[in-house]
């Protein structure tokens, strides 16, 4: 499509006097012209998104964000808007004729999603161009990656529903694993794998995926250069995400563990690989690593040209992390202990 998404899927709202006064006041607190301009634009973008949510009566808490905090907006490129209980949106200002949206690295993680906001101050108009849940650690994100602004509405409702079912789950079994959306996670001990134990649902990786795909793909250049790995092992599990958008989605979650000689650390590579006829993953499949508090620690999202996606992490013995795979409505989740 050659048309900018804004021409069909955005929404234009006025930049009011109040927005401008607040933006000017915030910017004036910064003596560095470039940073002051950034603060001003961030404030206008946050105000515009907030005004949209106000129209739809979606609760927001503008003053709770870093963008409203005098110290934090100086110490980061803050354009966050807090939705109570749900998380924070990132409201990124762009020029009216832009084709990409700048997302600063400090906004790459822990966001509900990103809204590109074209500011046309002459016309006193802010256009919410579109919404994206993930920018895959990219600074210049093509606006074609942003969906219609209605997808923001959908995401808010999806999160609200997950919040409710998570609260239900807590009421039932007293667990506090929020973000679980009602799914109970099992704990898999990676140390036992290395010791030779295999749990029922996990099998040697080369029985599920092509051995050639597995062998050296896991080693980063640094790890190959330093032969300090004592033991390493790959395991895979079939993850059936059911029928999504008319296609049956079955993938392999591959976990590769490398125990280091020198300390108690293990390096872990997580991959999601397709298991159907297509050598490619469906677009928009997401792999998450969650920390002990079930907060998103890292994410990767598949494009339609990816034959796998992966994340790397390392940790000490007995550290706990979660892995989540989502596609469409379907979610798979498992807890691991290193």
């Amino acid at each position, binding site marked *: 499509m050659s048309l900018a998404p804004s021409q069909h899927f*955005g*929404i*234009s*709202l*006025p*930049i*009011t*006097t*109040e927005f401008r*006064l607040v933006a*000017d*006041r915030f910017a*004036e*607190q*910064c*003596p*560095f012209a*470039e*940073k002051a301009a950034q603060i001003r634009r961030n404030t206008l973008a946050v105000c515009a998104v907030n*005004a949209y949510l*106000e*129209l*739809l*009566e*979606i609760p927001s808490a503008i003053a709770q964000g*870093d963008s409203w*905090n*005098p*110290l*934090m907006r*100086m*110490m*980061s490129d803050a354009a966050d808007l807090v939705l109570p209980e749900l998380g924070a949106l990132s409201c990124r200002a762009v020029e009216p004729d832009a084709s990409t949206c700048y997302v*600063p*690295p*400090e*906004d*790459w*993680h*822990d966001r509900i999603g990103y809204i590109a906001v074209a500011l046309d101050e002459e016309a*006193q*108009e802010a256009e919410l161009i579109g919404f994206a849940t993930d920018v895959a*650690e990219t*600074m210049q994100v093509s606006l074609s990656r942003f969906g219609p*602004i*209605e997808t923001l*509405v*959908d995401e*808010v*409702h999806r999160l609200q529903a997950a919040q409710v079912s998570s609260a239900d789950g807590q009421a039932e079994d007293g667990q506090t694993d929020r973000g679980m959306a009602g799914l109970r996670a099992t704990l898999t001990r990676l140390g036992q794998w290395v010791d030779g134990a295999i749990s029922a649902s996990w099998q040697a990786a080369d029985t599920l995926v092509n051995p050639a795909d597995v062998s050296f793909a896991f080693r980063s250049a640094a790890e190959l250069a330093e032969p300090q790995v004592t033991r390493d092992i790959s395991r895979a599990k079939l993850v059936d995400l059911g029928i999504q958008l008319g296609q049956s989605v079955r993938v392999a979650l591959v976990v590769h563990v490398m125990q280091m000689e020198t300390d108690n650390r293990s390096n872990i590579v997580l991959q999601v690989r397709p298991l159907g006829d297509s050598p490619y993953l469906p677009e928009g499949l997401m792999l998450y690593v969650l920390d002990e508090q079930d907060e998103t*620690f*890292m994410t990767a999202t598949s494009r339609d040209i990816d034959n796998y996606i992966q994340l790397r992490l*390392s940790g000490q013995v007995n550290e706990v992390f979660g892995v989540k795979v989502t596609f469409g409505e379907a979610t798979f989740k498992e807890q691991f202990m290193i």
Partner: protein
Amino acid sequence: MGSFPAQHTVLQHMNTPPDNPDGQASQTGKLPEALFRLVQETCAEPPGSARRQRGLTKIIRGLNGQLWHTYDPYYADALQQTWIYFCRNLCEAATADRAYDPQVAKLTTWLNAYLKRRLQDFQIAEIRHRQTTVSNMVRGKDGEGYLDRIDTIAAAPDIPPLLEHVRAWAEADEDGSLRAMHITNHPTVTAQLLILKRLPPETSWKALAEEFGISIGTLSSFYQRKCQPRLRAFGQSQGYL
């Protein structure tokens, strides 16, 4: 509202048939009928539902550029109030006496009437404001600027105490915790170092990534998850709220 200008009266299209609530747009094909159906579908959904919210979004998008427009400095304010009025009263009368009725007026007519009343309110408020505060007015270069500009006194160009305060706190690191936190396998890249580097005028992430040989993603993730909570806590303890 006796002085309300008569060129676009509310009652002009009182008898517009319900299948064509927006005669103005009929020049552009099927939009009016589509818009009418959209209003019906939207209002059939419960308030606060995703479908209601999507519908309101679509209608606002469809009305973009079709409402009364002026170059009043407070036009944007009046327009925002109009959108709020639209969302609150299209289906149910939340703030108005009656909800929108397609049998009575076109959508644009209904909204323009409200928009013009708000513009008038602002005009009246401005006239009153001028009469009482003429001595405080400073006109902008372009002749705009209807607001008091007592804040135009130039700000001192020196570093505000806030940033000096952050620097002193990070450099002192009294309990040593900022120095103790570092990026995995990079003991020299500490929270203290990153906070000082990101103090405005800050070093770019790209430059930092090159300097330390660490990816931007790893650096920014550490900054976001380890450094920012400490900065927030410091700000709070110092009353920067």
